């Protein structure tokens, strides 16, 4: 481990600071990227209403810094850990920072994805959307900087400060459009859930430091907790980070907050911020805690799968495109948590190589989800700007008016549906492969149960396909359901560049899994002392995590195979036959009075899901009678957890508040009486 460049120095301070060659990656990240983002934010406030300056200069600069962070972090994954102590904060309580493979991996994701989103944002934000652009710029870049610092923090104090900064800055971003009451409500819910999570994380760190009073992560690593306290710490971490990640039943804020925020912010929250919760969970359970038990993994696996299934079933019945994506994020986070659970189970039994396989699947999914979900949220942003509609029931046929966005979305949709040869499939494949090894576990019960859980993963993946067909088909295909859609315009140049970058990520993650697993390898080496890097490198472009005989997947050959058959079929048809084409009205079994209202609606597309998974939903239907002159059909689908947990809790809180309210009579004499009684009581205590 090497010491920090400019920070920890006592004697030869200034000269050394100016000597840039002595800087470590961590210093570059802190000064150039985090400092740069904060400076951009300040510049945004200075140019509060100068719209062109903010959008055309500041946001692209933030994107460039994201790219820089991506490059630096990529190098740092393979480097030795670096530490630094920042002398800011409270007296005698400096910030400890540490850059190791785990944090570098997440920094890389933050940098790469935010580069695309910032570039997109340069062309996205419009004037007069609630918050002035300069302020938005400040909040946005503070948000970015705090996320980077969360994964760098090496003591509980720095971590919590950054975690809270992240929550607050994102709260202000969510409520950017604060004149709408719904948005304010969503923001409030988000803030509440964020703080419940934060309290739990704080308590978790309290348990982990084991009464030593030293809150650095180094000290926590050194503690050898009893199984009971280790489990308490783990469960608190699960609660805290689960609230941020959207683990069922703590997911309720996601489908409210993500749609409320402006699209680049939704992209950032869904694509990047949720990953900091995954980071926290990994950091606590694999790094800070020295003992691990298989039942933690079992719990994570069960919760993760429940979350995934719940998320995807709800996503399939949504009629608001951004809510659909938010629920889809719940699903993906569930899959990641399930993979982590599997890794914990394997590592609890000391099967390190298999644990590394499952953890690789989790990290791979973290990266691919970051790319495709941001991409999809940005696409909804384009649609929203072009049509001013978020409801699927009023969209349709947009592939003709905004072809560019449509094709880009198609890539995101295919990745999200977990289809080969794109990024989403690789992680799913790795996860299923690791499930196939669970019969090797020494516990008979787990042997039986876990392979069946693989079926649930398969079901979730297939349902994701259903959801994504609905998402893409209803928005972009078919006929426009409203007349105004014919005026929809395609994305601007900045937006295109940003989205293309994210598309590139989806495709690269799909086609080059071997190379990307080399990047994940140091992370699993750090956490589990095992990795797939060497095995995978042995078979070239073919992904074979154990051996080629056991299982292999070659996305490049796969793509070439499909593309070659495509091209050959096309050429052969032209060669032997002809390429004649006639246009005519749609056939539809010869029914000539087709109109756009006869297409399947979003509700219609969700109907089989509502029927098959009925117990999942609270449904309220309003059905017309056959004699209605103006029939109205309405269905509202809600979440059971509101009725089960949140509304009773809210009622309880309100009742307690009312009881406390009885004390407050609003008359001076009563308050004087309180003081008097207190004084007497104190005197009695003192006198004893």
């Amino acid at each position, binding site marked *: 481990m090497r010491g920090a460049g400019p920070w920890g120095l006592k004697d030869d301070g200034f000269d050394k600071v100016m000597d840039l060659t002595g800087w470590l990656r961590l210093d570059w990240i802190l000064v150039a990227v985090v400092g740069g983002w904060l400076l951009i934010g300040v510049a945004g406030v200075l140019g509060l209403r100068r719209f062109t300056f903010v959008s055309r200069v500041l946001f692209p600069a933030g994107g460039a810094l994201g790219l820089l962070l991506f490059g630096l972090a990529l190098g740092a994954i393979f480097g030795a850990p670096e530490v630094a102590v920042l002398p800011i904060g409270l007296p005698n309580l400096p910030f400890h920072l540490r850059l190791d493979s785990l944090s570098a991996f997440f920094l890389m994701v933050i940098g790469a994805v935010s580069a695309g989103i910032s570039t997109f944002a340069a062309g996205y934000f419009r004037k007069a959307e609630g918050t002035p652009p300069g302020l938005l710029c400040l909040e946005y870049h503070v948000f970015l900087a705090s996320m980077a610092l969360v994964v760098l923090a090496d003591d509980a104090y720095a971590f919590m400060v950054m975690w809270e900064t992240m929550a607050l800055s994102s709260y202000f971003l969510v409520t950017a459009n604060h004149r709408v009451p719904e948005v304010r409500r969503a923001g409030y819910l988000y803030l509440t859930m964020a703080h419940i999570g934060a309290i739990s994380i704080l308590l978790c760190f309290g348990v982990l430091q084991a009464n030593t009073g030293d809150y650095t992560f180094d000290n926590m690593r050194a503690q050898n907790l009893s199984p009971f306290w280790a489990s308490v710490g783990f469960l608190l971490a699960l609660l805290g980070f689960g609230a941020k990640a959207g683990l069922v039943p703590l997911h309720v804020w996601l489908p409210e907050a993500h749609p409320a925020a402006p699209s680049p912010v939704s992209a950032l929250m869904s694509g990047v911020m949720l990953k900091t919760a995954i980071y926290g969970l990994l950091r606590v359970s694999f790094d800070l805690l020295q003992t691990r038990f298989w039942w933690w993994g079992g719990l994570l696996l069960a919760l993760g799968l429940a979350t995934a299934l719940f998320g995807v079933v709800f996503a399939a019945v949504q009629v608001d495109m951004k809510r659909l994506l938010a629920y889809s994020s719940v699903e993906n986070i569930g899959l990641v948590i399930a993979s982590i659970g599997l890794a914990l189970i394997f590592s609890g039994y000391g099967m390190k190589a298999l644990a590394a396989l499952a953890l690789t699947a989790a990290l791979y999914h973290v990266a691919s989800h970051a790319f495709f979900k941001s991409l999809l949220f940005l696409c909804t942003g384009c649609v929203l700007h072009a049509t001013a509609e978020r409801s699927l029931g009023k969209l349709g046929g947009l592939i003709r008016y905004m072809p560019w966005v449509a094709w880009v979305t198609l890539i995101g949709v295919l990745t999200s549906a977990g289809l080969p040869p794109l990024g989403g499939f690789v992680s799913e494949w790795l996860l299923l492969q690791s499930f196939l090894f669970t019969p090797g576990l020494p516990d008979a019960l787990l042997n039986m149960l876990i392979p069946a859980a693989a*079926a649930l993963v398969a079901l979730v993946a297939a349902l994701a396909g259903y959801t994504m067909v609905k998402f893409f*088909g209803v928005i972009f295909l078919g006929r426009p359901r409203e007349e105004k859609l014919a005026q929809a315009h395609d994305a601007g140049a900045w937006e295109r560049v940003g989205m293309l970058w994210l598309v590139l990520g989806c495709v690269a993650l799909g086609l080059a899994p071997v190379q990307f697993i080399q990047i994940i390898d140091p992370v699993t080496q750090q956490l589990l002392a095992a990795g797939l890097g060497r095995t995978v490198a042995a078979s070239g472009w073919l992904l074979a995590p154990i051996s080629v005989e056991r299982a292999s997947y070659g996305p490049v050959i796969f793509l070439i*195979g499909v593309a070659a058959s495509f091209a050959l079929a096309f050429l052969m048809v032209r060669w032997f036959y002809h390429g004649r084409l006639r246009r005519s009205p749609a056939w*539809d079994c010869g029914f000539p009075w087709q109109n756009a209202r006869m297409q399947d609606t979003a509700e219609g597309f969700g109907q089989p899901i509502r029927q098959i998974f009925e117990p999942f939903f609270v449904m309220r239907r309003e059905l017309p009678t056959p004699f209605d002159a103006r029939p109205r059909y309405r269905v509202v689908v809600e979440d059971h957890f509101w009725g089960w947990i949140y509304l009773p809790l809210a009622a309880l809180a309100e009742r307690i508040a009312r009881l406390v309210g009885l004390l407050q009579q609003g008359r001076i004499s009563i308050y004087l009486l309180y003081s008097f009684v207190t004084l007497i009581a104190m005197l009695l205590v003192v006198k004893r």
Partner: protein
Amino acid sequence: MNIYGVISQALEIVVALALAPLLTGWVNQWRAWLQNKSAPSLWQPYRVLHKLFNKDSVVADHASPLFRAVPYIVFGCMALASSIVPTLSTDLPLAPAADAIALVGLFALARVFISLAAMDIGTSFGSLGARREMLIGFLAEPALLMVLFSASLISKSTSLTTMVEALAHQELAIYPALAFAGVAFTMVSLAENARVPVDNPATHLELTMIHEALILEYSGRHLALIEWAASLKLFAYSCIGLALFFPWGVAEADAPLALLLALPVLVGKLAIGGFLLAVLETLAAKMRIFRVPEFLAGAFLLAVIGMLVHILLAT
């Protein structure tokens, strides 16, 4: 990769492309006979393809480029699928590109594209078909995966060629797990290939149609490609079933004679399989769409039971 590998790979693709319509014709012929009808010629599917390729393609006015690309994509997917399933030989250079899980992904890719194409025109039948197709897809996929899991737990591999080699060389060839998996696989194949209890391949212009509703707007060469792809899919599914449950007679590496022998064996196995399919379709009645989840959940449970049986017996 050696010369035999390349030859057997090429042979396999050619055989799949050439024989797939024949299998469809064979099943149709037997079905007609079993139902006391006069049967179409065995070569009817080829004639239909030839006729369709010669016709002009009529495309709806507002169809997007996606609509025109999908037949080629679906055809490409199915061609790749039938070239990685070991039908004649297990010495296939392309096979490592996709194992059993990737094969399921490949079928899913084709399904997603064809459903998107059906929604593209914006007719009521198209989107209805897309919805139903995706419904059957998400019910069938987990069951199919569980079947493949059972087989790969036995053979300790998800690579199709290794699976076939391992299963063909088992001393005790009949596993109880495989029996469950076999029944489940048959049920899934019926659903995935739009066969009778789930969908009726002979239907047209009915409210209950699924596959036909999807491709209602296609004509000419596009329709020909889709029909061909559908036969390829039936062929590929039959071959997966044969490869997993009756793997004998498939040639292995460096065995040119066995390769020659493999073709008649395959044709024989497919002939029997096609006949059984026709019998099954004649005996069963088509079920309501909301019975299909129960049917496929049954398949899924059978597959899971098969897997559990294997794990129980193995420990």
